[in-house]
């Protein structure tokens, strides 16, 4: 299929940029590998969706953005945050559920967010971020700024209602948004040709007034060019764009994925096009770096991840008092959380008066008794009994068997 922007290889950027690109992809790869290990050690809870294989798609796109542009992603978004410059410490700490996480431990792996770097979030619901990105683009336009947003989602999201709704709205209102479908060939375990009648996803928004283009998601330079051009059109011509990056995730959908929907041969075939190996080889072949240089870069990336993991492990869990923090902005209408949560005022008035704050604290402590050590022991105890790979809703059991991904 015609995927690439051009048949000829793209010209390499200058040495400094080339090395930076490689380093960024390596950082993401090593981060994700470590996250998988930490999940197996139960340092990370819930779901864990790794982007290994998609590094070129992520870094190519982010490098085409201005620092003032906004980025939104899905629940597979550790790489996007790292590409945008969020310190790996803050990302790993969030995965660990610690107070120093980007989202203070309230979001977890699927809900990273870094306002300072204009990374506007990972979103847990497939297709849920498209309307939000449309609104961000509306605000960029409304305020008369030159900013734009790149909204990333998977091939599966192209079947959601929000895909058509948001494409139409963005085109109708001429908003500065680039919708980017990361076609990694599967909506969870359902392959593209089994979930989408139209498999050239770049064409899927044409009927809504959003022209599309395709790029090779395994080639960081091809992605960079495609997204750069799409951003130009969205920004300057006020014509929203859809960019399809054709890529592949080497690991399972999440850590709880027995991968019965694809063959090892298929994965091996795609791995030959590993975006990091391919780019590294080209830099070596063209004399930009040596094998030794690469080893050093790789060691440096691993070192960064060592530091990030140590930082995350040393970061405390959020204080129990913070359970009710940040649900509301306090002000004229909401004085405090007790004003909206009826659990706090003294129950059974007419008997002993009790302070609202103390009661909430006691209740929080009672609930928290199930977390931390006891909880983790409990997870381990049950992890051998449960059926492996119970699907998205079953992080236990197969979740701890990380061999399924073959990485």
């Amino acid at each position: 299929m015609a995927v690439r922007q051009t048949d000829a290889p793209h010209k390499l950027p200058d040495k400094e940029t080339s090395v930076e690109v490689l380093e960024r992809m390596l950082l993401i790869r090593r981060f994700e590998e470590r996250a998988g290990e930490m999940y197996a050690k139960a340092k990370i809870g819930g779901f864990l969706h790794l982007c290994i294989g998609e590094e070129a798609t992520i870094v190519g796109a982010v490098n085409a953005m201005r620092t003032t542009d906004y980025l939104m992603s899905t629940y597979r978004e550790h790489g996007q945050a790292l590409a945008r410059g969020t310190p790996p410490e803050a990302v790993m700490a969030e995965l660990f559920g610690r107070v120093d996480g980007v989202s203070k431990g309230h979001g977890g792996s699927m809900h990273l967010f870094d306002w300072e770097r204009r990374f506007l979030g990972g979103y847990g619901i497939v297709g849920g971020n498209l309307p939000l990105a449309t609104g961000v683009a509306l605000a960029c336009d409304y305020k008369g700024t030159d900013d734009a947003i790149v909204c990333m989602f998977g091939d599966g999201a192209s079947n959601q209602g929000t895909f058509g709704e948001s494409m139409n709205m963005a085109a109708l209102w001429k908003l500065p948004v680039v919708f980017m479908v990361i076609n990694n060939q599967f909506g969870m375990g359902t392959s593209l040709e089994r979930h989408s009648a139209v498999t050239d996803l770049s064409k899927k928004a044409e009927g809504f007034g959003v022209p599309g283009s395709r790029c090779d998601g395994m080639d960081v330079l091809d992605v960079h060019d495609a997204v750069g051009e799409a951003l130009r059109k969205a920004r300057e011509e006020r014509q929203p764009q859809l960019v399809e990056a054709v890529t592949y995730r080497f690991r399972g959908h999440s850590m709880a994925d027995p991968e019965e929907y694809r063959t090892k041969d298929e994965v091996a075939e795609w791995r030959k096009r590993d975006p990091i190996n391919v780019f590294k080889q080209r830099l070596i072949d063209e004399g930009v770096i040596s094998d030794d240089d690469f080893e050093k870069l790789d060691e440096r990336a691993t070192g960064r991840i060592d530091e990030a993991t140590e930082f995350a492990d040393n970061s405390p869990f959020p204080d129990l008092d913070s359970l009710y923090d940040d649900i509301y902005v306090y002000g004229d209408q909401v004085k405090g959380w007790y004003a909206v949560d009826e659990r706090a005022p003294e129950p059974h008035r007419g008997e002993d008066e009790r302070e609202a704050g103390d009661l909430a604290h006691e209740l929080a402590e009672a609930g928290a008794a199930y977390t931390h050590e006891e909880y983790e022991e409990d997870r381990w105890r049950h992890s051998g009994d449960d059926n492996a790979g119970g699907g998205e809703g079953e992080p236990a059991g197969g979740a701890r068997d990380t061999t399924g991904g073959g990485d």
Partner: protein
Amino acid sequence: MPTMRYREALNQALREELEADENVFLMGEDIGVFQGAFKVTAGLLQEFGEKRVRDTPISENSIVGAGVGAAMLGLRPVVELMTVNFALLALDQIINSAASIRYMFGAQVKVPMVIRMPGGAGHQLGPTHSHNFEAMFLHIPGLLVAVPSTAADAKALLKAAIRDDNPVIFLEHEWLYGQRGEVPENGGPGRFGEAAIRREGSDVTIVGISRMAITAQRAAETLSKEHDIEAEVIDPRTLRPLDLDTIIESVQKTNRAIIVEEGWPHGGVGANLAALIQEQAFDYLDAPVGRVAAADVPMPYSKPLEQAAFPHEEHVVHAAIATFRDI
């Protein structure tokens, strides 16, 4: 004090807030050229232009989501869903985005937006177009919920909602749109979490939600004239935050309570309030807390059936008298 219709009071609030803050804009289906399905936004497109008063495609989930995205960047969108029934199509964005974003992203952003929508039965619109979802929205932490029953409250609370930094579900009532009431001139924003005592009484507390606050007041007059029962009628005005103190203080005085709502009984506003009242004023109750709610059925079309399916004055009177049985 000038009197005006509930819908005119809302229109005034929108106009004043559009004038006061450039970041305020309206977005919704047919709110502009068509002037609003219920004419709440009448004249505003002409006055403020398409940038501030934006007609949208029929795409509820994306309308709300776009509002959330714009709010994250500091705008103050006032989204109109044509009716509360269509909010079902937008629940993902209301719950997973509007209500959750601040909390799940560690308070790095806020979502200052208002989602206005009318509901209510009585227009023979059948099962899909007669919903009351106060209880559903009340259920969700992260949202504020307003249920104004008078023109004055409609205006004051809408102004407050637009100025507030939290996502607000603003539930209007189709039947109330045409009702007149006194509205203070140059009135400022109202206060969430402050109930109104619509009628003082010593014998039974009746809490009425939205239109049912009006129904409760009528029932109270009948109770007084025909049954020698003096009911205290409380209109909470907002359900989140909830002015539970006013309700509990009233129950401590009357020792009896009834909650009247137009939504379904199971998991309803009344169920919630009854639980709170028994938790916090158990020693004061002389009778079980009564609930008056819609019949536990999808809303039927046929007029007599429909009328039988949502609460009227006589249901409230009956429920109030029932709290005096066996004493």
